[in-house]
């Protein structure tokens, strides 16, 4: 009788890539629920479209590459890409936005570079930047929080808006975004940026109704929900704290210093932390293992760099938010970071 031959180790911790990815998208649920509460059901339609597109794109790319299709679906990495992109774009954006972005993310950013594990750039963020640059109007038309909205949008209206551009009553997205004063309402970061650029002081800029809450109605709570989900990921050891920690320090420390010297002209650290894609970016996007640095020291540097770039772009750049750009720029530096943060191997003169 001959027995089975296998390579050691024979014991294995049963946490597969699929399980890791599942944790990531499950931890997004609180954020998505809060987003729904403030911005309506559009996010579910976007999610459905993104998932369908990702599924088809992944299958198509694998087939073209002559690889087993089922294998790729199994690892759930495409699901994470689709979910991240779907929740990053305005909830009422037209359907072709998310379809195009997801297809680009999966086919070009991921598979053209060699598939899972080989891509240089974060697929969701590269897809996001493609959309932001190509379709700036659609990509910045965030619905206003429900409590400030003049018109409530039902589920059927949401679907109608995404597919035809109008509600059943004939309103378009622009009209829905008007506040009580008849002025289109921007996101907190967008609004702040415009006002500060127009020489308003911070307190004047913050007098708008959208800032009636902690750090912008809705946005603060969405960020807090993503923060909670992110803490679960750290607790579950799906991600290490180094990247989110680094990113928040890299963003908030310069922001605080700048704000101390320019109290009237700077975005407060609180607003930096709790608006835009800060928490989503810190815990879910920058932590994509494929495109991040690999050692803990490297992760810390990588996080700091992203945070600092977000601060710089938000403060002096041409876009209100900056997480996507910052992540892509930091992705490019990963090989260099990895090279210079390599731990000293045992017995090579390191200290215990």
């Amino acid at each position: 009788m001959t027995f089975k031959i296998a390579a050691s180790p024979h014991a294995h911790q049963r946490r597969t890539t699929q399980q890791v990815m599942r944790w990531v998208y499950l931890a997004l649920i609180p954020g998505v629920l809060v987003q729904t509460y403030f911005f309506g059901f559009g996010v579910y339609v976007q999610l459905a479209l993104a998932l369908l597109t990702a599924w088809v794109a992944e299958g198509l790319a694998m087939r073209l590459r002559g690889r087993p299709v089922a294998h790729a679906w199994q690892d759930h990495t495409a699901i994470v890409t689709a979910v991240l992109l779907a929740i990053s774009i305005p909830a009422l954006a037209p359907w072709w936005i998310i379809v195009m972005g997801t297809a680009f993310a999966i086919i070009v950013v991921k598979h053209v570079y060699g598939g899972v594990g080989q891509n240089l750039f974060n697929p969701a963020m590269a897809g996001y930047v493609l959309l932001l640059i190509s379709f700036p109007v659609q990509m910045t038309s965030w619905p206003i929080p429900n409590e400030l909205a003049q018109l409530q949008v039902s589920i059927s209206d949401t679907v109608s808006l995404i597919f035809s551009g109008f509600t059943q009553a004939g309103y378009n997205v622009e009209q829905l975004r008007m506040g009580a004063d008849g002025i289109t309402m921007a996101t907190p970061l967008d609004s702040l940026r415009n006002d500060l650029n127009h020489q308003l002081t911070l307190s004047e800029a913050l007098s708008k109704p959208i800032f009636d809450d902690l750090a912008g109605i809705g946005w603060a709570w969405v960020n807090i929900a993503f923060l909670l989900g992110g803490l679960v990921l750290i607790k579950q050891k799906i991600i290490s704290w180094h990247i989110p920690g680094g990113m928040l320090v890299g963003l908030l420390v310069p922001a605080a210093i700048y704000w101390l010297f320019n109290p009237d002209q700077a975005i407060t650290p609180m607003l930096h932390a709790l608006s835009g894609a800060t928490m989503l970016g810190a815990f879910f996007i920058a932590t994509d293992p494929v495109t991040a640095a690999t050692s803990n020291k490297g992760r810390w540097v990588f996080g700091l760099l992203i945070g600092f770039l977000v601060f710089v772009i938000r403060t002096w750049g041409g876009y209100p938010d900056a997480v996507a750009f910052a992540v892509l720029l930091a992705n490019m530096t990963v090989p260099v970071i990895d090279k210079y943060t390599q731990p000293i191997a045992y017995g090579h003169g390191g200290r215990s």
Partner: protein
Amino acid sequence: MSAATKAIEAGQIWTFPGGIHPPERKELSNQTPIAPLALAQEYYLPLKQHSGAPGELLVQVGDQVKAGQALTQVGANNGLPVHAPTSGTITAIGPGIIAHPSGLADTVITITADGNDEHIALEPLADYTQISRADLLERIKNAGIAGLGGAGFPTAQKLALQRPLDYLIINGVECEPYISADDRLMREHAQTIIDGTEILLHIAGCEKALIAIEANKPEAIAAFEALLDKHPQLALRVVPVKYPSGGEKQLIQLLTGRQVPSRGLPIDVGLVMQNVGTAFAVAQAVLQGKPLIERVVTVTGENVEKPGNYWVRLGTPVAYLLEQCGFKPEPDQRVIMGGPMMGFTLAELAVPVVKITNCILVPSSQELAPAQDEMACIRCGACADVCPAQLLPQQLQWLAKAKDYDGLDQQNLFDCIECGACAYVCPSEIPLVHYYRKAKAEIRNIAREKAKAEVARERFEARQERLEREKQERLERHRKAAEARKKAQAEAVAQGGDNPQDAVQAAIARAKARKAAQAAAAQQENKEGDDA
């Protein structure tokens, strides 16, 4: 005393980076005392059971041997003897399967047991301090003792390195899951291990020994605590449970905060380490004169009915050992020699238990699920987080797949201790250690080939040089001979003798005249023909 030494004396436990906490599953085998194993009918003794050359053969087929009788003797290149595990007849000496991952054959002595189990007379030693260090080393060598912890390095060899030593470390950590051989040995034979440790200290000329036990072995710790009061040279160190804290380099880091330099030895940092089983064997060899013919083996896993620890004679076939323990194989059964992290699978069970065999593990596929398909690396870095050697396993994996041997060297592949922590945590189930082992073997092969090619090149060049030299010598000889001939001729002519050149000229003239005559005759004939 330096601050670092003070901290070691005070019992500080340092930490090492990485490490994992796999399910320990030791309770499966550590509940019952070490049991004797009934004698087998046949024993297979590979000549080489340690790291070094095999010893020199002392017996031939047909010889009757007794238990403890040496079958080989100490030889060159760390050659250690092996001894007959029981009395019987030598029925074969030749190639046989050995306990090695390659499954390749090596020279094996087969002994058919006579069932009487007669032992040779032992020569106990009343007071080892009365004989010389060299004699003690000789005694240990002749007993065939090699490190029983796994590497099988000849113990006497390790002790013979005459360098200053700060501490002798006795390794009773046994961090690999499932295995409890050292645990049981420490519980039941703490005094003998202490005796062995004192002998080792005496031989090494060292002042102090640190006995390290992992915190998950409270009974073993208690057994030593009860005895150590009387032995001021020995100190107990309890290390936290983490795999691979029992690895030589990691344990050194834990107990002293020192790191063995890359490609160096523990003695480079003033330390030497021995396993508890080795200390036990040394005590038996020195005090009782008993050679190494048996060891404790853990037989465990859900597919044996009687898991536990057994005194197993070296050379016992694994098949027999498992049969005695109620082996119930399942389809695609794996039989692992060693533990679940670093052990290797056996294709055939005729393989014998040897000096370094600490465990036979026969897991069910529920407890240790077989490996899944390898998926793509997602660069998650989990492997780097757990690597105790602070390497970048995923980087090594890319380089190994690309056969970039220079890159592997730069990334310190040879500092990998193959503990398997990286592959254990890999979410893509990449058999990382397998890739490293393969790359290491390839690099060693290339180095060997290179050395061989270098020798061949030197030989070729030497031959070319010799041929060229011979050719030049030959030409020179010819030249000299021709010159001498010419000179002799010239001299002969000068003295009025025949010039050989004249004879040549005359011969040419004669030949020309003959040809002319022939041509004239032919012409004449043609003419006559025409006339007719």
